């Protein structure tokens, strides 16, 4: 088994009366991509901030790379790459200058800096943008630059807080590609997301979080198998609620979110046929995914804050 990079036990954070992180345990192993999946307000960013030493914990144990985490520890910071939720690039500076300045914060020598900048611009597919002022970049390019910036000191682990939130699908795919590349190179990735697809695609293991508590953890496939039936039929339409509910019962378990019914089962093709016979009804038959797991575990969907 790979060595442990992060170890957290009974990790707790309160702001006044409010418990934001409620005694959670997890371990991240070297080389894996570990995800925190949860809605806004679940405590994901707070956990990230605790790991990088920007938020002191109120209880429990937390060690990163074998060191007990205390705020502002240069020895830990030197080995981590951090991609914050909000881009905090120097918008007045050029793309290359942003990397240059960051290299200096890590105390890299001129020779290493030049090498690293070339290499990272290439990695981020921004080589032709080296002298472009940052404020003229697109959202996806800025995000790629922030990721490149997190890599200047060749970290053992990169922590990404919602790496693709707010990006269009194409830009998102490009980021996923880059992150997959990092994983290939053996870099441990830790990411938070509220995109089910992102979690399923990138993460070896996931931790599902709601209101500061862990609901479950495991690989995306395990979680889906453990909590939901393999097929899901989404039904919506003009038909009265009662009619739809009736149909739902045909498949077995069903749930309603907004104006959509989710019918869970093993062989739903026949149910689909019957739904289609009804006028004013639409439906979609698909394999179960993490979104369904989340709905099952919390009773609300990922988009809603808690």
């Amino acid at each position: 088994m790979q060595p442990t990079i992060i170890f957290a036990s009974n990790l707790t954070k309160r702001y006044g009366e409010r418990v934001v992180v409620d005694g959670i345990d997890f371990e991240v192993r070297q080389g894996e991509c570990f995800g925190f999946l949860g809605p806004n307000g679940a405590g994901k960013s707070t956990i990230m901030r605790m790991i990088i030493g920007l938020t002191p914990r109120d209880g429990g144990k937390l060690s990163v790379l074998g060191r007990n985490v205390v705020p502002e520890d240069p020895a830990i910071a030197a080995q981590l790459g951090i991609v914050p939720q909000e881009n905090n690039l120097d918008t007045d500076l050029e793309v290359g200058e942003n990397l240059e300045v960051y290299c200096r914060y890590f105390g890299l020598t001129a020779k290493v800096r030049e090498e690293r900048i070339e290499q990272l611009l290439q990695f981020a597919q921004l080589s032709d943008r080296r002298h472009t002022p940052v404020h003229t970049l697109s959202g996806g390019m800025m995000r790629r630059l922030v990721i490149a910036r997190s890599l200047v000191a060749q970290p053992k682990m990169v922590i990404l807080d919602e790496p693709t939130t707010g990006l269009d699908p194409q830009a998102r795919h490009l980021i996923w590609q880059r992150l997959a590349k990092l994983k290939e190179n053996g870099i441990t990735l830790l990411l938070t997301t509220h995109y089910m697809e992102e979690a399923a695609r990138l993460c070896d293991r996931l931790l599902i979080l709601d209101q500061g508590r862990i609901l479950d953890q495991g690989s995306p496939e395990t979680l889906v198998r453990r909590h939901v039936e393999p097929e899901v039929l989404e039904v919506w339409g003009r038909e009265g609620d009662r009619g739809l509910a009736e149909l739902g019962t045909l498949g077995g378990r069903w749930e309603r979110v907004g104006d959509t019914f989710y019918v869970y089962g093993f062989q739903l093709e026949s149910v689909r046929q019957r739904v289609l016979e009804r006028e004013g009804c639409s439906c979609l038959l698909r394999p179960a995914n993490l979104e369904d797991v989340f709905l099952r575990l919390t009773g609300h969907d990922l988009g809603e804050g808690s």
Partner: protein
Amino acid sequence: MRVIRGFIPSRGSVQVWRRHFLVWKKNAVASLAGSLGEPLLYLLGLGYGLGRFVGAIGDKNYMVYVASGILAANSMNSATFEAIYGGFTRMTRQNTFHAMLATPLTVADVVAGEIAWAATRSLISGTAIFLVGWSLGAFSLGSVLVALPVVVLAGLAFGAMAMVVTAISPSYDFFLYYFTLVTTPMFLFCGVFYPVASLPILVQAFVAVMPLTHVVALLRPEASGFVFAEVGVHLAVIGVYAVASFIAAVALVRRRIIV
């Protein structure tokens, strides 16, 4: 021991300063014009305008007298503006502090870099004011050796004081309190435009503990008429303001960001 270490900046603070310098260079011309305009207008407007009526203070004509006061006041204003508006923008809107703290840099490094940069802004505009004052005959070229180091020291003290305000400000509006209650009174009562000795004795006692009084006294030794015209005391007062404010600023920025 650990507590003390949290207040000692590392070499990384130099890189914070460099970052600010790099950004400033992009807009150097506009920034110079902006920061020099006001002190030069004061120098010319008051030196020539008011000087015509005042004539001379002591054995100096008013232009010569007021030039050293303006140099002192500018060291306060330049550093204050940079640490307040620049510092607050970097801490809040641009999240520059957060970006820095995601590296081996510490809060002490970030704050020290801010203050050093604020003092640099005092030095940049102070140098220009010195050159203009020199061309008008207000400064001797030799006095540059005293004037500019004093300007830098003053910039460190005022920059550190302003960082304390930055650290506790909820918004940009809050700065007005600091200007109205602290810097503007110093500008008007600490000997920039007239000798402190002409103030009522009670006010003099109050003014004696204000840092700008001591900066003016150092930059205008002959004409200050100040009671303890001891260089060591002036330096000590400015130094105490600088160090105490730095410690407070680091603690307050830390309390604000590490939550």
